[in-house]
């Protein structure tokens, strides 16, 4: 991946103009159903085919995978161009590029550490949206404690035999491949050393998925079962026993900026402006709600919190202002951000008055029931990836030095 070197700022602004223009002419019309805000909300064939078509369009127009190698379907261009395209797409609130595990996790991993064969086999399908990827790390009863993984992979000649189950597999029922973490050595001295990393074909015999219905009523995740599933030994990534290290590297892609990611909009976030939009036209006690002093005070509290959240990123860049608790902002971003959105979306329902009772599917629901669904979906972020309560423990122990339970 190249850097900004050699690009004139004039070229960049011309490029940006091109993106804006492209967005104007290519953003799809309202499909008549609520589009997902995240890739964890792809629960029907209808939504899937819409998103697939959109991602394919973004890619074939040259605005996805711009910095990925050209020979594997990428654009071979400097990263900065992808950043500009992403910025503009985000701003225009175009639909998400849904193949997130491929674009943001598996893809960068394969580019950085994969063999030529792996690059040849997997990268293009990730970009085009043809090959959907899912992630098989979490297991039932283990939450995000990867060290406790029980799913076994046993070598048998040219194959591995997989047994066990995974949970919270996003798009598990649609995926062609899974990045799979499984135990190849149950006698390893350290439990992390017995893990291996696979690029597993979901079509293999013995792999079944069972969709999980979320509290929103939608689908999006599956539980995935491996019953003597045989996958080619060539699916092993790196060496046997290196799975933990590769998984950690993969998680870095998720957490650390968007360094190797193919680009595209991964999440449609809600901001306070969206909340204020619904507050504008609402009546309460015979008067416009926006005149109510309590409501105003509440809205400003949210605005202050939002501002502090966004500004924190910029403070972190200044070491002198983080000297007391160096990891404080980094380790609390997830807790603060996800909890902010939970409360903010919950408040959006309060603002709607009697209409807050309406849900997705009702013609009169405010913004199609977006907020009702967004509020409940938000729990995927306050629970997934370590619950808010676990996050608070982590911050207490690692930032403040408080004793463990």
């Amino acid at each position: 991946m190249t850097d900004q070197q050699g690009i004139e700022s004039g070229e960049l602004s011309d490029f940006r103009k091109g993106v804006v223009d492209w967005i104007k002419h290519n953003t799809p019309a309202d499909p008549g159903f609520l589009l997902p805000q995240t890739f964890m909300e792809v629960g029907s064939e209808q939504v899937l085919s819409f998103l697939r078509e959109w991602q394919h369009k973004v890619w074939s127009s040259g605005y996805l995978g711009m910095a990925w190698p050209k020979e594997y379907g990428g654009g071979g261009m400097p990263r900065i161009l992808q950043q500009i395209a992403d910025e503009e797409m985000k701003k225009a609130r175009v639909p998400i590029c849904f193949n997130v595990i491929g674009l943001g996790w598996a893809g960068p991993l394969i580019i950085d550490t994969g063999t030529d064969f792996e690059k040849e086999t997997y990268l293009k399908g990730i970009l085009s949206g043809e090959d959907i990827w899912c992630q098989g790390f979490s297991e039932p009863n283990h939450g995000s404690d990867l060290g406790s993984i029980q799913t076994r992979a046993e070598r048998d000649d040219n194959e591995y035999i997989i047994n066990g189950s995974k949970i919270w597999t996003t798009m598990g029922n649609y995926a062609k491949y899974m990045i799979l973490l499984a135990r190849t050595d149950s006698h390893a001295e350290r439990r992390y050393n017995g893990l291996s990393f696979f690029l597993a074909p979901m079509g293999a015999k013995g792999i079944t998925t069972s969709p999980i219905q979320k509290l929103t009523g939608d689908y999006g995740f599956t539980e995935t079962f491996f019953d003597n599933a045989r996958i080619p030994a060539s699916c092993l990534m790196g060496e046997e026993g290196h799975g933990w290290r590769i998984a950690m590297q993969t998680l870095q892609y998720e957490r650390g900026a968007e360094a190797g990611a193919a680009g595209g909009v991964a999440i449609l976030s809600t901001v306070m402006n969206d909340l204020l939009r619904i507050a504008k036209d609402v009546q309460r006690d015979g008067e416009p709600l926006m005149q109510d002093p309590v409501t105003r005070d509440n809205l400003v509290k949210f605005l202050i919190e939002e501002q502090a959240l966004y500004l924190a990123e910029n403070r972190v860049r200044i070491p002198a202002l983080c000297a007391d608790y160096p990891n404080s902002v980094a380790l609390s971003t997830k807790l603060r951000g996800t909890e902010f959105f939970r409360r903010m979306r919950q408040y959006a329902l309060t603002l709607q008055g009697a209409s807050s009772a309406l849900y997705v599917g009702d013609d009169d629901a405010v913004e199609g029931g977006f907020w009702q669904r967004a509020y409940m979906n938000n729990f995927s972020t306050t629970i997934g990836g370590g619950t808010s309560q676990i996050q608070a423990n982590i911050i207490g122990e690692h930032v403040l030095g408080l004793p463990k339970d």
Partner: protein
Amino acid sequence: MTRIANLSIEFSDEQAMILASAKDFCRDKSDINAVRALLKSDTGFNSDVWNEMISLGWAGLFLPEQHGGSELNIGATIPLVESMGRHLLSTPFISSTIAAQAIMRGGSEEQQAKWLPAIAEGAIGTMALLDNEDWGATDTSCLLSTKGNNFALQGKKLLVNDAAVADFFLVLTKYQDSIALVIVEATQLAKNAISNRTLVDETKRAANVDFTGVTIESAAILAKGAEILPDVRLIGALLIAAEATGCAAAALDTVVDYLTTRKQFGRLIGSYQSLKHPTVEILIQMDSARTLIYHAATLIGDGKLSEDTEIACRMAKAQAAEALSFAGDRAVQFHGGMGFTYDCDAMLYIRRAQWSQHQYGDPQHHRKLLATLLLD
């Protein structure tokens, strides 16, 4: 729709150096014993420490070079004031800085030439703004009227910070129908004009001051008093926010110390999530305040404050006051029986919280004004 667009935070090498030396200075000069030793003193501060601060050039940090200053802007004092809050180092610094800002922004050349060098050398100024409990008041009953070629003041001001040690006061008054700020020197006050108050925060000093009968020349009327007063109030709010943020961090330190040493039921009490999680909440609230004060410090300049800067100052004050109130309150509670005693340092923070809450407007006041800026 909201107008928040500016998300910048910058911090110069100079500011980093100020922060580093302020941290050392405040820690060395104001350990908890030094703080407690001053609680019952007359002035509330150690004049040797104050003189050292002056000789370090802190009072003139933001003043023009021609008036003995270092020509940074008011944003450069934020790390100083934050450090003072962190160590409960009370001096007339904040009072004097706000008064200096008023003269710098609203004074004529003569007024600046007379007062700014004096401030840089340690003269103490303070604002006399309040007629009553209302920091949001825009009017005053302290009146200015002509008296021959001069002007006479009539009225009292409440809770004037550091009044007993002030060399001069900037008094909010009304001449005919217009608001004015006038400079009154301590020597002009009638005997017994200053009546010290008993404050909940024993590290602070304030008094009611009766200006009735004081005669001033027209040269003592601040040239652009009415014009710059809103900005001066915002600067006051920001400085209090910085001090409160530092103090919230100190309260957090005190809580963390106790939670990592005190055992109950055979366990360090910090291992209990019912104490651990709210302590993390103190950190998060304090961190947000810190982010907001340095954002405001980045935006603020010597000229008229922009709307972005106003938003930033008000957000900073609202957040910092809330953060410190929460931190002080929990600091007392988490110390258990010990927290109920005067010996426990949590007492210092909960009292400071009550003082900071209303200085230059409480959180609700600022949110109310933010609502107008952001929602309408």
